[in-house]
């Protein structure tokens, strides 16, 4: 059922933008139905006294991930808060958000809010630690979208980024903690982790818990990460009310509450939870008493209260847990009510500055009732739920087990002081929002220029929603005895301290006892603080502390920018030789040092072989000589031919080693490369244009020799260190049984490692497209190519018709269609004739290679290049006209369909329930031909074949006929220029 509810939230989030377009602002009310329905279902569950509701769906079996949900008391309370407040806030939005305003999309706002409610619901109900982390990060990302709602405001997006960096950073730390805890305990089920905590394994678990808490601390904006929360007030007020009062910041509190029953007696826990909680409570409180902006006042108040909640829920006694849960409930009610009150005030007057607000209480009395009730609950005044919680908390804290001179004693003291501050800023809120007392005197030292205000009366919804939330706090106060029975299902599980804390009960009247007296003193001191210090219409100057978390954060970010700039500036000098030289130097230095100093297993003398055969030595000498000569060559063509010689030599070395497939492909590729090189080199100067100084040449040569030596030595060491047998030991058998082919290399390519081949096809496709774009550059050029293709197709059709008339007498001019357009001086009759003779034969050979490649040397790669060579021949015989006549399609068609076929052959087995790319084979008997062995991986190889032909066609069309056309155009325009010139 929870899964269905989560799905409903997701669906609502997806349809929210279109719903918003159709219904306008009312769409928010429709969206509110989803969390409302969830709340209703939760209410039916809360009644049941039986075992906790559980449900589980396997998710990623191999990772042990499952979507497990468990509803115990803590989950129900938090889920209730999240859904009820979420529904009310969406309702509030329907009257608050102006759809016509610029700067943000309401559809996104609605969708993100509903999605956020769903993510929070999942977070507080899931029983799987990894799923909890996933939900946790979903809330982080959605909060980024919500805080940065005003996309036109630079400060808003910056605040969103700041919140994202802090909370996501904490989230990553938490993930590490999650993994540590899960792995040491052997389970990721939260209920099992908490019920049976592994605390004996020493520092590892402490680290895990500490990292987990770091996530909670950043999310709940505890010191020193509190600064993102006031910054995030750039969000629309309902968002602040939800994220920063009821939901997101409660995620950290929830985490503390959830794990308190398992880990609260760890030292790291005590220090982080009590220390940071108490510090946050005081710091936030002091800041809150100084704010002029009502929303910032609430923001700092929230920081303070979050510190308090973490302190109580992580304290580790039953009483503190009960008080903490009560205050958590109270806080969600009063803080969202207060935020929504501020939203209504802002909506009505256009300002939240207490110096500008006038007559709000008089004009909106019900709003004043709501705001005052909520503030009273925040201050802990009697009969409200806040009072009940505060009393319970005082009872739990005032008798610290380890005496006052301990962490618990300090926490109790901070709690009392924090309550005094809470009283003071609650008063400041009511005084600033609803009375005119905060107006600075005219002509005074801090006089503020009056603004002409427009009163825009808040409607029933804008007042009603905060009022409902505030009244809920009023009703729950007297009803707290009944509430206790609901909450003790959680608090009973938390008993970690060796000495049990005092017994705590909820209720309005426990007699005149110490907590009551302390409360009275808190009210008096808080009132005094307000009267003396906080009752000022001006911003109370904050003494600039030397350590300011916000500035430290910005300094850190700036330092990161700085580091990036320095590193980039140092390494990226902009010169390609220098960059490559750096890389080669590292290649020499790192493995080189290891070779010299490390403990290496050098091959013994009997482990060395001079050569396998005499032929190998001969070829090797040839390759070495040509490589050295190529390095010294000053003419381009000479270098190209020498490099080609090394390529052919390498091919023969492959063949001698027993790799006929490699040799075949290498020879074909070398031939094609040579053709392509010559096609481009005809445009370039005959000599290499660079003329480095003798020193540069020597340095380069030195580096080259060093690289060669290091690579050679590394090869010796690596080969001598090999202890394992080849991975392909039983591949021969498997390739026949499973891959249905005898050529193991081909079976590897089209079956075992077919995914890699697919990736390679994509690279080839990208390269081919890049070549075409670099040559044709503009769409007009492509249009010319397409027009040429259409002409070629027309010619072919005409030729067919012509052939039938002329009874098969095919003239060379017909056969090589473009020949007439060529300059007779540039024709080669011999080439034309030879092309006529061999073109179809070569194509046939390529098809043969393709079909037989599964059992003999060949395959899609080699076959594709052979077909490409045939095309090369046609191109050389008759230039672009011939190429178009030979294969009148765009290369992109071949590339695209090739990749499509390869991918399709991967997918088809999946339709039959097999793994992707599974190979089947069948024997077919075809009359005349005989028995044919059909293998499904042939389909994949056909894809490879087409892609390679596409590459070849693209290269010939771009670097061949594309450049031809450019030369022709230049030749036409050159005489014209000469005439114009002087």
């Amino acid at each position, binding site marked *: 059922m929870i899964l269905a509810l989560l799905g409903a939230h997701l669906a609502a989030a997806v349809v929210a933008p279109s719903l918003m377009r159709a219904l306008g602002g009312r769409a928010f009310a429709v969206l509110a139905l989803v969390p409302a329905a969830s709340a209703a279902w939760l209410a039916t569950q809360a009644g049941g006294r039986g075992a906790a509701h559980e449900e589980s769906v396997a998710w990623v079996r191999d990772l042990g991930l499952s979507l497990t949900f468990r509803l115990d008391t803590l989950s129900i309370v938090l889920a209730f808060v999240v859904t009820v407040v979420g529904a009310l806030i969406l309702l509030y939005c329907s009257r608050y958000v102006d759809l016509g305003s610029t700067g943000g999309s309401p559809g996104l706002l609605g969708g993100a809010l509903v999605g956020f409610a769903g993510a929070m619901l999942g977070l507080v109900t899931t029983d799987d630690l990894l799923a909890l982390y996933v939900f946790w990060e979903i809330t982080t990302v959605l909060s980024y979208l919500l805080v940065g709602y005003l996309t036109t405001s630079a400060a808003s997006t910056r605040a969103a980024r700041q919140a994202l960096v802090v909370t996501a950073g904490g989230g990553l730390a938490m993930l590490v903690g999650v993994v540590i805890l899960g792995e040491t305990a052997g389970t990721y089920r939260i209920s099992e982790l908490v019920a049976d905590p592994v605390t004996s394994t020493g520092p590892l678990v402490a680290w895990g818990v500490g990292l987990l808490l770091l996530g909670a601390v950043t999310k709940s904006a505890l010191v020193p990460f509190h600064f993102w929360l006031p910054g995030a007030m750039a969000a629309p007020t309902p968002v602040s009310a939800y994220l920063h009062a009821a939901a997101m910041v409660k995620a950290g509190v929830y985490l503390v509450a959830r794990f308190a029953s398992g880990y609260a007696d760890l030292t790291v826990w005590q220090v982080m939870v009590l220390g940071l909680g108490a510090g946050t409570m005081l710091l936030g409180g002091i800041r809150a008493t100084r704010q002029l902006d009502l929303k910032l006042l609430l923001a700092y108040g929230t920081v303070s209260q979050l510190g308090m909640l973490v302190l109580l829920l992580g304290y580790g006694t039953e009483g503190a847990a009960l008080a903490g849960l009560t205050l958590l409930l109270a806080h969600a009610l009063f803080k969202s009510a207060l935020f929504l009150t501020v939203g209504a005030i802002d909506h009505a007057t256009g300002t939240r500055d207490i110096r500008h607000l006038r007559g709000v209480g008089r004009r909106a009395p019900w709003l004043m009732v709501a705001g005052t009730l909520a503030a009273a609950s925040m201050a802990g005044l009697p009969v409200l739920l806040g009072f009940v919680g505060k009393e319970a908390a005082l009872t739990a804290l005032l008798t610290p087990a380890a005496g006052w001179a301990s962490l618990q004693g300090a926490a109790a003291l901070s709690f009392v002081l924090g309550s005094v501050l809470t009283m003071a800023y609650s008063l400041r809120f009511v005084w600033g929002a609803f009375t005119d007392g905060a107006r600075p005197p005219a002509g005074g030292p801090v006089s503020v220029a009056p603004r002409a205000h427009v009163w825009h009366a808040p409607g029933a919804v804008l007042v009603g929603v905060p009022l409902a939330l505030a009244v809920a706090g009023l009703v729950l106060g007297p009803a707290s005895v009944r509430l206790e029975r609901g909450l003790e299902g959680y608090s009973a599980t938390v008993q970690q301290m060796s000495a049990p804390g005092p017994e705590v009960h909820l209720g309005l009247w426990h007699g005149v006892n110490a907590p009551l007296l302390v409360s009275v003193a808190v009210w008096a001191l808080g009132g005094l603080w307000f009267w003396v210090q906080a009752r000022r219409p001006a911003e109370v100057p904050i003494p600039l502390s030397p350590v300011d978390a916000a500035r430290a954060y910005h300094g850190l970010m700036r330092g990161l920018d700085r580091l990036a700039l320095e590193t980039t500036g140092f390494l*990226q000098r902009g010169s390609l030789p220098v960059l490559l030289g750096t890389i080669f130097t590292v290649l020499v230095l790192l493995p080189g040092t290891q070779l010299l100093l490390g403990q290496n297993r050098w091959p013994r003398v009997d482990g060395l*072989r001079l050569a396998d055969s005499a032929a190998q030595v001969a070829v090797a000498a040839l390759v070495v000589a040509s490589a050295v000569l190529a390095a010294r060559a000053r003419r381009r063509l000479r270098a190209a031919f020498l490099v080609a010689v090394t390529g052919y030599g390498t091919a023969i070395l492959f063949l001698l080693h027993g790799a006929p497939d490699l040799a075949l492909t290498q020879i074909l590729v070398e031939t094609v490369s040579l053709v392509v090189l010559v096609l481009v080199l005809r445009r370039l100067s005959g000599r290499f244009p660079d003329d480095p100084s003798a020193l540069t040449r020597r340095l380069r040569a030195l580096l080259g020799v060093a690289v060669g030596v290091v*690579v050679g030595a590394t090869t010796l060491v690596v080969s001598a260190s090999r202890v394992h047998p080849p991975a392909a030991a039983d591949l021969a058998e498997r390739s026949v049984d499973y891959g249905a082919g005898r050529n193991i290399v081909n079976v590897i390519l089209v079956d075992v490692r077919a995914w890699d081949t697919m990736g390679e096809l994509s690279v080839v496709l990208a390269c081919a497209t890049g070549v075409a774009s670099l040559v044709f550059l503009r769409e007009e050029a492509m249009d010319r190519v397409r027009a040429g293709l259409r002409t070629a197709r027309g010619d072919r059709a005409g030729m067919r018709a012509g052939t039938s008339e002329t009874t098969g007498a095919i003239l060379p001019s017909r056969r090589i269609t473009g020949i007439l357009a060529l300059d007779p001086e540039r024709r080669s009759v011999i080439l034309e004739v030879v092309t006529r003779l061999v073109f179809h034969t070569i194509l046939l050979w390529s098809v043969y290679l393709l079909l037989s490649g599964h059992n003999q040397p060949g395959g899609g790669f080699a076959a594709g290049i052979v077909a490409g060579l045939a095309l090369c021949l046609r191109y050389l015989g008759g230039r672009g006209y011939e190429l178009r006549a030979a294969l009148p399609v765009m290369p992109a068609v071949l590339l695209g369909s090739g990749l499509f076929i390869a991918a399709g052959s991967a997918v088809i087995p999946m339709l039959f329930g097999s793994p992707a790319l599974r190979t089947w084979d069948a024997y077919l008997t075809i009359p005349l031909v005989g028995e044919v062995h059909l293998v499904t991986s042939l389909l994949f190889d056909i894809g490879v074949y087409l892609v390679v032909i596409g590459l070849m066609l693209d290269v010939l069309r771009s670097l061949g006929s594309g450049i031809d056309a450019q030369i022709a155009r230049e030749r036409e325009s050159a005489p014209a220029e000469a005439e114009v010139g002087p």
Partner: protein
Amino acid sequence: MSVNLTLTLVASVLVGTGAYLFLSRSLVRALMGFLLMGNGVNLLFIIGSGPAGSPPIVGAGDGGPMADPVPQALVLTAIVITLAMTAFVLALAHRGWQVGRDDLVADDTESARIHARAEADDLGSEPGAREQAEEIAAETERSERGHHGRRDDAATDEEGGTA
């Protein structure tokens, strides 16, 4: 495993001369270096695959040990990628020739600019930490105004000018 010295020597020479050519400013020369290096690295795979043997085709050999097919499959892929890369770099060189009448790789001005900024410790026009914090604080005050409209018929505050 015994190591074939001849092949190791060939591979080292190919990689070394390739590195030498790679460091050139001429794009075509660097491409030559890339091709030499590519051949050398492919040979390294073959050396690492162990001793020579009969072709890895079931039933084709003379019964002797078969050469390891897995590195061969890797190298086969590399060869075809090299062809595609060759074509791409040549197209780049051609484009360079079109623009500058030679295929020399000029220094990247953008990198030089970043380098100059790093030398001058200039982080650009991004506001400082203090300004950013203040800007965010100021924005929170302004933020609401954009979210909701004002009705035109709403009455003007009569107390507006008395303060």
